[in-house]
């Protein structure tokens, strides 16, 4: 079983991280940096204001970057018959979804956390704030990945699924955003801990909800 899961992870990473024709994880990261770059233009060069709101902008940009690849997380594999073939081989949908969450996280979160450093510099954040942002992203991005895969599975096969999944992810990501970005204003680690707690809940639910959704889409 571990060999099969390894093969699945390898394929998922090749598709999501390198991404073939669709640019893989490069495009979401460039998008993230572009948002961080354009924000000072929009609000003006007021350094204290940028420093106060910059952390929150990084969080919103991270959420949007995580939403970008949702339409190719689950649906293409259902369309191409991969989920049917895996089911025939006794590989449960829950395992496939769990592996895909890991691959999705690996494909955007580490690069995003790296890109957050130049983004923080553009917004003029100070050292402790950058540290809190990075810790918050570390705690929050697994939850975003789980949420993204779960919603992608739920909307696979629906017409307009890509737009719908964005609409579904944003409200469900509110707790992560409140605690993750909120830890910046209080400066405490409790916000990071609560972000981590939200992530763990989402990670626990997502494989089962996503697996059930893929099975339901089959009939």
């Amino acid at each position, binding site marked *: 079983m571990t060999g099969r899961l390894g*093969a699945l992870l390898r394929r998922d990473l090749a598709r999501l991280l390198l991404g073939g024709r669709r640019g893989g994880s490069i495009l979401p990261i460039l998008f993230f940096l572009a948002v961080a770059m354009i924000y000072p233009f929009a609000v003006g060069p007021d350094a204290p204001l940028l420093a106060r709101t910059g952390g929150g902008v990084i969080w919103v940009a991270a959420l949007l970057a995580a939403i970008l690849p949702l339409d190719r997380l689950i649906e293409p594999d259902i369309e*191409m*018959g991969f989920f049917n073939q895996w*089911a025939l*081989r006794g590989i449960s949908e829950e395992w496939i979804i769990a592996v895909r969450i890991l691959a999705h996280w690996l494909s955007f979160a580490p690069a995003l956390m790296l890109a957050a450093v130049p983004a923080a510099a553009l917004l003029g954040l100070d050292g402790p704030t950058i540290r809190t942002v990075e810790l918050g992203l570390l705690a929050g991005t697994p939850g975003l990945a789980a949420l993204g895969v779960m919603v992608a599975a739920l909307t696979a096969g629906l017409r307009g699924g890509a737009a719908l999944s964005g609409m579904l992810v944003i409200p469900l990501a509110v707790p992560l955003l409140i605690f993750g970005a909120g830890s910046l204003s209080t400066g405490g680690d409790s916000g990071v801990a609560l972000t981590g707690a939200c992530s763990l809940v989402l990670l626990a639910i997502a494989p089962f909800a996503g697996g059930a959704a893929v099975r339901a889409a089959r*009939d």
Partner: protein
Amino acid sequence: MCWQACDFPLTLGAMQECRIAAEKLACRRGDRVLFSDLNFALSPGDALQIVGSNGIGKSSLLRILAGLMRPFLGQVVRDGTIGLIDERAALDPELALGQALAFWQRIDGPVDNELARLGLAGLMDVPVRYLSTGQTKRAAFARLLGQGAPIWLLDEPLNGLDGEAVQLVETIVAEHCRAGGICLIASHQPFDLAGLRQLALQDFTP
């Protein structure tokens, strides 16, 4: 029909004991019952062709037998893993054929999938999206052979194949059954195979 099957696992390696049976199967799509009270039992070496016009439920029957769809009534009894070929090849379109098949070999284990015989040996560097319909179908057969499953469910296996490839598929199916496998074919095209039984789905429509 169990001739030379169970005791001589010859060409396809150690094929395990397999069987598949439908008991009082019924299938409903929407509010329409497609077929009901369908019974059959297949033992090693058997081949069955499911015939019927478009939309009568051939594909649905195969999906029920594969366990991908729940029957409306009745049950499927089976021993042995299922290999399925349908209109979806389950090969990554942007990968070269060799890499796409290598993924399934990592999942299924290193079983010979007879690439040369299927006429695929020269296509291993070609991206799957550039393959023709017939070539994709043959690649799906390579995936099926590599799986080593005893029960084959083939949904329109001859679609898009030229005359030579049709014969090749018929030979491969014959070998599979001789080695103790079971094969179910859903097709409205004639399939040339000794000992092939036919099941007409219109006999089971309500």
